[in-house]
């Protein structure tokens, strides 16, 4: 099924509505959107001490995009993975728990098609969550701090629209990374009929991966950890872009997506639906 076909499918739209029509998920998205708002307000109320000269802070705050990027940095360790885990963990286990699978499958819905639709909806939610944080941060940042040039991590300055493009690239990159986590969550979700269990397990895997990534003695496995390349998005803010870790991150996310989506299919197509 091509992406265009998927987006046109009535079933896919129904699945997306199931996620975005739910008040619980609106609350989750509101929390994600609250972080850039808090950052923007806090930064607007910070005045550099007099006599500090043309300082770094003043340089950064000349361009509102920093609000979006700071919000992403703060949400990447917990809030964003939590949101993705919540949706992915609920995807199959939630329907098993309600018993709706026993009505959906005899419609008939082929099990591979169901998983494809579910994974597509998880991916769409992930993209929406990342871009929501960035969009709220960008709009608010630009309103409060203006549209000056953007300071890169290499110390150079980028014109405004190039800065915006960099932020979009960061969002796309992190969306890919988090979709890899979504695939893990989808797989875990096919293992159980308890959505909460699948959600917590997926989040714990993320946290465990962060912890293992901090232990130097385990450096041999670091590059295989799902979260290893996430913070590499900073390389997209260098001038020129440092692609080394970024391409590693894209490859890692693609592998996690393919392997765990495949595992979910293998598990789900042979499973007895007894709920």
């Amino acid at each position, binding site marked *: 099924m091509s992406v265009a076909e998927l987006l046109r499918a*009535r*079933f896919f*739209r*129904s699945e997306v509505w*199931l996620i975005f*029509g*739910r*008040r619980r998920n609106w609350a989750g998205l509101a929390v994600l959107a609250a972080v850039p708002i808090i950052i923007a307000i806090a930064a607007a109320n910070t005045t550099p001490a007099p006599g500090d000269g043309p300082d770094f802070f003043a340089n950064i705050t000349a361009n509102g995009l920093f609000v979006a990027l700071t919000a992403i940095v703060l949400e990447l360790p917990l809030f964003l993975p939590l949101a993705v885990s919540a949706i992915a963990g609920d995807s199959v286990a939630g329907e098993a728990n*309600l*018993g*709706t*699978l*026993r*009505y*959906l*499958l*005899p*419609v*008939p*819905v*082929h099990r591979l098609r169901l998983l494809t639709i579910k994974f597509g909806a998880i991916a769409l939610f992930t993209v929406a969550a990342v871009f929501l944080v960035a969009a709220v941060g960008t709009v608010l940042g630009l309103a409060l701090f203006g549209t000056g040039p953007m300071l890169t991590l290499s110390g150079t300055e980028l014109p405004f629209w190039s800065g915006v493009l960099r932020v979009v690239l960061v969002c796309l990159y992190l969306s890919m990374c988090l979709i890899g986590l979504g695939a893990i969550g989808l797989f875990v979700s096919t293992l159980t009929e308890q959505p909460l269990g699948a959600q917590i397990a997926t989040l714990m895997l993320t946290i465990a991966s962060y912890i293992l990534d901090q232990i130097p003695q385990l450096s041999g496995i670091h590059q295989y950890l799902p979260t290893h390349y996430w913070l590499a998005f900073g390389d997209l803010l260098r001038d020129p872009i440092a692609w080394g870790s970024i391409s590693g991150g894209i490859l890692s996310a693609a592998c996690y997506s393919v392997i765990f989506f495949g595992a979910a299919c293998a598990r789900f197509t*042979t499973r*007895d*639906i*007894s709920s």
Partner: protein
Amino acid sequence: MNAVSSEGLTKRFRSGQVAVNAIDLAVPTGSVYGFLGPNGSGKTTTIRLLLGLIRPTAGSHTLLGEPMPAKAARALPRVGSLVEGPAFHPYLSGRDNLRRLDAADRTADPRTVDKRVDAALDRVGLLAAARKRYRAYSLGMRQRLAIAVTLLRPRELLILDEPTNGLDPQGTREVRALLTSLAASGTTVMLSSHLLSEVEQICSHVGVMHLGRLVAQSTVEALRAQTVPRVQVRTGHPAAAAGTLTSLGLAEVTVDGDTVTALLGGAAPEKVVAALVGDDVPVRGFVVLEADLEEMFVSLTGEGFDVSG
């Protein structure tokens, strides 16, 4: 041709329990097939097997002539099903739940969805509550919604697990009338039940499950013919009445207070009455007790119909 047919269909759970044991179902096209058995006898597991929700340990089956699960995409759109009670998204309305299931059906026409959903809701009497969230539905309304799912499009076969569960007497009557009218229009109906009375009223065929085995399967008439009617005489001289019945050659003559019963066998009831009167037995009451399916099912399954197996 049989609408549902299985050969040696078996399901052994990982616990080792054999829930369905080599059953050979034959649900004739156009029949109303009552799938009877006490709770826990394997009816729901059989229905899950038929719909492809669980895989058989052994055996095979076809739905509407299509081998399952290989040709599920061809067979299942023509099959409406209700398995083990209603299950829907609690925060969606009844109407939105139906729309979701219809959206999942690749073969359904998206242009007619509103009409079909409302027609299905109307047919089960839920149109007034269509916009209510499912979580606010009563048990009976939930059951009605589950039946509405099967009516989203014309079906050739309905497989319904305890369709009147949770319904009030009025609702039960409505569902029975609905099924009768669907059957009259040519839909094959297979419905499971642990209530004999429900099956007896609308079914042409029955299959009886007991401990995972299909212990009987035939038309209702054939089953009824296997049962034997009895005569019951109320009299002031039970001993004399018993003597007359014995001399007529009736079997199993038993006396209980002022009541004497015996198997009628081939004897004509009017002859029996004449013989009693001829022997000067004062007859106060005379009844022919018709074939009792309930007793037959109890003898087949070895327990009452509300006992968990």
